[in-house]
């Protein structure tokens, strides 16, 4: 049986689906890796919630501008054609359906496309939501990037999320270490599965019923 995809391999797979000309917001953490793998012949405009379109990669050491940071507070650069705007405009882009694709991490996703990615039920730390709810609700397409199961082997794709929701019925597609799964009106539809993993094995690691695309493909590590 082939190994589960590593994170950079999931990022590479998602990058294949980032279309030329798209306005894209990559969530904090793992999703930022996707930008590294988008083919160079595609022109993609990256948005940051703190008021940037046309965001480029990290600057060379010594070139950092403390005023030019991304949503994760890391230093970034501006590409030719970039623009700067204030926070309310940045969130109008996110909330008003102007962002074509967002890629977000997840604690859990439900078969109806509910997303839980901002809080666990740990009451010790103060809650913090940032722009997660705005992005989940407002982007035209919401892609989730996640390990298929937790470190303890529990399913992250469930009939119903047990963690607090970020958005209700917002996820379009889930890219995991084992599969690519669409959220449809009829529930979850597996489109790709890693080589050597049976349908029964994937179903056993998934907490909601999977249906299978007639043209189910092999999810290649790339």
């Amino acid at each position, binding site marked *: 049986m082939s190994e589960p995809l590593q994170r950079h391999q999931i990022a590479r797979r998602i990058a294949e689906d980032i279309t030329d000309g798209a306005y894209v917001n990559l969530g904090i953490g793992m999703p930022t890796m996707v930008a590294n793998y988008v083919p160079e012949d595609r022109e993609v405009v990256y948005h940051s919630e703190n008021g940037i379109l046309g965001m480029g990669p990290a600057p060379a050491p010594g070139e950092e*501008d403390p005023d030019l940071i991304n949503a994760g507070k890391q230093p970034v650069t501006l590409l030719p054609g970039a623009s700067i705007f204030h926070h309310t405009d940045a969130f109008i882009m996110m909330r008003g359906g102007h962002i074509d694709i967002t890629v977000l991490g997840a604690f859990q996703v439900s078969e109806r496309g509910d997303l839980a990615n901002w809080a666990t039920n740990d009451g*010790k730390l*103060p809650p913090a939501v940032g722009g997660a709810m705005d992005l989940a609700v407002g982007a035209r397409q919401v892609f989730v990037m996640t390990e298929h199961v937790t470190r303890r082997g529990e399913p992250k794709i469930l009939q119903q999320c047990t963690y607090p929701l970020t958005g209700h019925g917002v996820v379009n597609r889930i890219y995991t270490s084992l599969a690519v799964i669409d959220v449809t009106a009829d529930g979850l539809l597996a489109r790709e599965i890693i080589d050597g993993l049976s349908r029964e094995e994937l179903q056993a690691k998934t907490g909601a019923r999977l249906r299978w695309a007639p043209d189910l493909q092999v999810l290649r590590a790339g």
Partner: protein
Amino acid sequence: MIDKFVGSLAQAVADVPDGATIMIGGFGNAGIPVELTHALLDQGARGLTVITNNAGSGETDVAALIREGRVAKIICSYPRSAGSVWFERLYQAGRIELELVPQGTMSERMRAAAAGLGGFFTPTSAGTILAEGKETRMIDGREHVFEPPLPADYALVKADLADRWGNLTYHSAARNFGPTMAMAARVTVVQVRRRVDLGALDPECVITPGIFVDRVVAVGEA
């Protein structure tokens, strides 16, 4: 003659009373009006409600106001940044109240206050714990949550250049919440790097028109 410049940081915040609601700009460390915040700390007002995206980090600016017990309540989206130790400590001790607001809802609530609107309905947070107890309405088949305007007595904002009419430009993504807060507060107090002559700013490039600005202090290069 209009001249919105005041002689000192202390003068700029001298009349802030106990119990005032104060917006403080910034996202991460970009755009925080550090000098004005320290002037407010020295001024001594207590029982403040602070509206700001993060809850301060380290020992300076917002974190210092919290540490010194000046803040009764904070309204923010993400109070859990690296180094937000003072907020976390007081929160766990039950000595500071938190109103957690999705980031885009926060900026739009401020914009609503600025525009004289009585609030708005948004799908952001619908079906989540942040919508509990709030009025909802189905609009075009989608659940929306009512959010009231978020005004303030004062806004403390960091800009780059100002003329004596209070016209402002900003530097890079340090702009973030500045323009919205400047519009939303009853008294807007701005610190700038440098004062320029009236007419020196290209009217096409003024980001915050002086009508939204009450007091300006030049603090020099960072």
